[in-house]
């Protein structure tokens, strides 16, 4: 999801994956199956009944740092965007967090029992904070947004404190620093670097996720709220 070149509707879907393989996650999270042959982005999106400009604005969010959607069509995007975010959550929960945990546990085994326990405790605390945050969005925010689209009367949910978001980010940075700056045993550096790779990738993914929520989702919600006069 990080590329300086802007993605446009008539580019071939297969080409943009070769340009930046992170777009695979965008494709997957919109439930677009692979095997799109030589079709353009526009053709693939139309077949998947996905607004092409929504797909493009997510691909380009890192380079443009703004949404290029027009507010007239906001309700049209909301449902697909929630699907995208929900699938991102699934990926974090089912793939990313267990993968990082596994790598950390097998690295921690080389250190004394105390350190091993403390690392396990640290990561459990971190992953439960992340999961709590994901659940809040899934149980409170997503249903709220989907109901807004259907014009169902409801109360505005309470905002979850932003400190929570910051905590999650801080802990990930803490873990990176612990590995980079303080873990001895150079004989296990390959494993450490492999874990760091995963952590940096996860961090980038989360950063983009936050960007999408702030720059694309939040204006959509505000606009829908205005229409419904919540």
């Amino acid at each position, binding site marked *: 999801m990080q590329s300086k070149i802007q993605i446009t509707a008539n580019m071939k879907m297969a080409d943009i994956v070769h340009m930046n393989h992170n777009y695979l996650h965008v494709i997957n999270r919109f439930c677009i199956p692979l095997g799109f042959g030589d079709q353009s982005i526009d053709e693939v999106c139309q077949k998947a009944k996905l607004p092409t400009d929504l797909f493009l604005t997510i691909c380009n969010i890192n380079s443009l740092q703004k949404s290029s959607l027009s507010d007239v069509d906001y309700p049209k995007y909301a449902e697909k965007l929630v699907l995208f975010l929900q699938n991102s959550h699934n990926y974090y929960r089912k793939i990313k967090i267990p993968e990082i945990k596994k790598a950390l546990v097998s690295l921690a085994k080389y250190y004394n029992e105390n350190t091993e326990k*403390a*690392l396990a405790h640290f990561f459990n605390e971190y992953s439960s904070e992340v999961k709590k945050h994901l659940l809040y969005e899934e149980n409170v925010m997503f249903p709220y947004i989907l109901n807004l689209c259907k014009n169902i009367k409801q109360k505005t949910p309470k905002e979850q404190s932003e400190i929570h978001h910051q905590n999650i980010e*801080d*802990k990930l940075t*803490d873990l990176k620093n612990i590995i980079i700056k*303080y873990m001895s045993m150079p004989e296990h550096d390959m494993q450490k670097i492999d874990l760091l790779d995963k952590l940096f990738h996860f961090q980038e993914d989360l950063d983009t996720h936050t960007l999408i929520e702030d720059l694309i989702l939040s204006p959509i919600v505000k606009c829908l709220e205005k229409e419904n006069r919540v």
Partner: protein
Amino acid sequence: MIVEPSPIVQEGLKNIIQRIQDFTVDAFYFDTNRLTEHLLARIPDLLLFNPCLLDPSSRRNIRQLYGINDECSLVAIEYSFVDKEIRDQFDAEISINDNDTRIQNKLQALKRNEKTERKNESEELTDRENEILVAIARGLTNKEIAEKYYISIHTVISHRKNIVKKTGIKSVSGLTVYALLNNLISYNDID
């Protein structure tokens, strides 16, 4: 490195600087042509630069313009009026009226500054900070730590800030891992 269009001034400056202990002039230019390239090859500790060489229409940041990083101190060579906006971008100024002692004092002050800054960055945790770190890892609150060591809560917070800054670790559970990795505590000490 000196960048000064007047050969007389440049020669004079070179003479004065070469006489100061631990200072050498290893590059000098009359204009800014290819300055970026020269700086790319080697960044000097000090860059003496005449601001009259800047294009007055472009009020850009000198450091950005030539790719000068923070490790290099910028010194202005002034013999005419220099706009405040430009002057503020320099770490020090040498005036055409300065005698050699003044020039020497200014340059040496810059060098000392630079050294202390670097020293501060690499500092390890002090004994007191290690004690506080252990207390944090054991799960003590700021208030409990303040009572234990007879210091104010304000002091505890300032120690915590320094610990976070030096270790790069913000969370309590992360600091616990740090303390264990450095054998400051054992796991049984933790609540």
